[in-house]
């Protein structure tokens, strides 16, 4: 059984006033994500990829179509689909420890287990020595590590990531991608990542879903030949990158895609 199934999903935002126009963000999007698969959704900004992620998370309701997570229809947000946000969205009044523990304490897990789990996930993202710090005391990259640990701690069926490394500088971004590969090697997870970076999607994914511009549709599904072992500038890497670039450049405005 697939971890996540999206069937004929459409989303239309009604006009805000009688002068405005209704916007179709997504048009008949279907996709399937298998267990422990890493899927990237790649496209221009404004292609509806974040809308797609918000629908999967349950933050918004689709206009048409259906989403299933582990066979259960998605109707509202839940810990089976925890999300890592671009702006981290850490709770600033909680320490790293309590941020990571948030979902577990909502679940009503006993405190000994919470302590053990929090320490496990803090170690997993390399933040053991910062466990009593507050988010404002950490750098951007470290905050995103906390956010990843917090989302993983609730053991989601699917981990959702919304441009998680876009706010980081180039070096941090590359490092966080490597960290993500390491984390997933230790803790296999089903992941759906939204990104506009071709390199990021090639580095991290099993499957890359290229979206069209507005309205967002699935343009092409690409299977990465050697997932998470792609080495930059090798022929197979360049071939995949060329293929994606061509797909994307059809969507005229290339400027936003790196």
């Amino acid at each position, binding site marked *: 059984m697939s971890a996540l199934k999206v069937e004929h999903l459409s989303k239309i935002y009604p006009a805000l006033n009688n002068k405005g126009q209704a916007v179709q963000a997504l048009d008949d999007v279907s996709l399937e994500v298998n267990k422990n698969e890493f899927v990237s959704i790649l496209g221009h900004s404004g292609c509806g990829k974040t809308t797609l992620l918000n629908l999967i*998370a*349950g*933050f918004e309701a689709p206009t048409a179509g259906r989403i299933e997570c582990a066979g259960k229809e998605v109707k*509202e*947000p*839940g*810990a089976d*689909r*925890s*999300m890592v*946000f671009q*702006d981290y*969205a*850490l*709770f*600033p*009044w909680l320490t790293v420890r309590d941020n990571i523990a*948030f*979902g577990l304490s*909502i*679940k009503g897990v006993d405190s000994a287990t919470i302590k053990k789990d929090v320490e496990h996930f803090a170690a997993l993202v390399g933040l053991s020595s910062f466990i009593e710090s*507050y*988010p*404002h005391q950490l750098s951007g990259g470290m905050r995103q590590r906390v956010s990843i640990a*917090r*989302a993983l701690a*609730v053991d989601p069926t699917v981990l*959702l990531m919304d441009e998680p490394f876009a706010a980081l500088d180039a070096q941090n971004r590359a490092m966080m991608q490597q960290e993500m590969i390491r984390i997933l090697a230790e803790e296999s997870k089903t992941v759906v990542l939204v990104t506009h970076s071709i390199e990021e999607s090639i580095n991290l994914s099993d499957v890359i879903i290229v979206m069209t511009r507005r309205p967002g549709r699935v343009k092409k599904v690409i299977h990465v030949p050697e997932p998470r072992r792609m080495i930059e500038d090798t022929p197979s890497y360049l071939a995949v990158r060329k293929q994606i670039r061509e797909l994307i450049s059809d969507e005229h405005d290339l400027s936003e895609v790196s």
Partner: protein
Amino acid sequence: MPFFYSVKQLRRLILLLILLAGWEFASRYILDKTQATLLPPPSGVLNGAIELSFSGELWKHIRDSLAREFIAFCYASVAIPLGIVMGCFKWVNEQVDPIIEILRPIPPIAWIPLSILWFGVGNTQNQFIIFLGIFFPILLNTIDAVKNIEPNLIRAARCLGARGWNVITRVVLRAALPQIVTGIRIGLGVGWMALVAAELVGANSGLGFLINDARTVLRTDYILDGMLAIGLIGLTLDRLIRYAARKFMPWSRALNA
């Protein structure tokens, strides 16, 4: 280092000391006797303060005023849950907001005549006026704080499994807290001003009563002492809240940034 720091701090008091000296001089040697009665020298004010504190009268009035402020604050803190409900539920806001918009611009002092008729002269009337002063700043700041919560914080909580009550207590209330505290600070300040006004006309004790009572017996030194006490206590209240906020919410500046 601390020594230089305190010297620097003392330097800031130079102008104040010069003005006090000028006042002392004017009051003693320039003003005639009647005028000097109306403006006693700083040394006279100090003597008055010593008299008032040794007789215990000053402390009694401070205690009564602070007790009124505190009790009114306890009542006014219903503004916090009300503000959260108004910030979270649109329909509550739609109904309550017009009432508040009408009541809010009426200065607490304008309620004094009506409140004297309602409650008579005394504690209840004073507390009512202070309540009005404290209530609205807390309410408006709470509503604003809830409306301005980063939407992704709510989303983050919900995708970690929180819903309903948990979202309100664990996220909304916490995220709004720094601005609620700002509301409390402003409210206590406005309440303190309203308190003195209420005591001027409708009380038998308190700092407002003290300065008005001193007027009837022409003790201008007591009037100035009462005014100083009002100012210093207002300042202290404000500093205490700021100190507590910084101590208990070390993250709050980061949140507001």
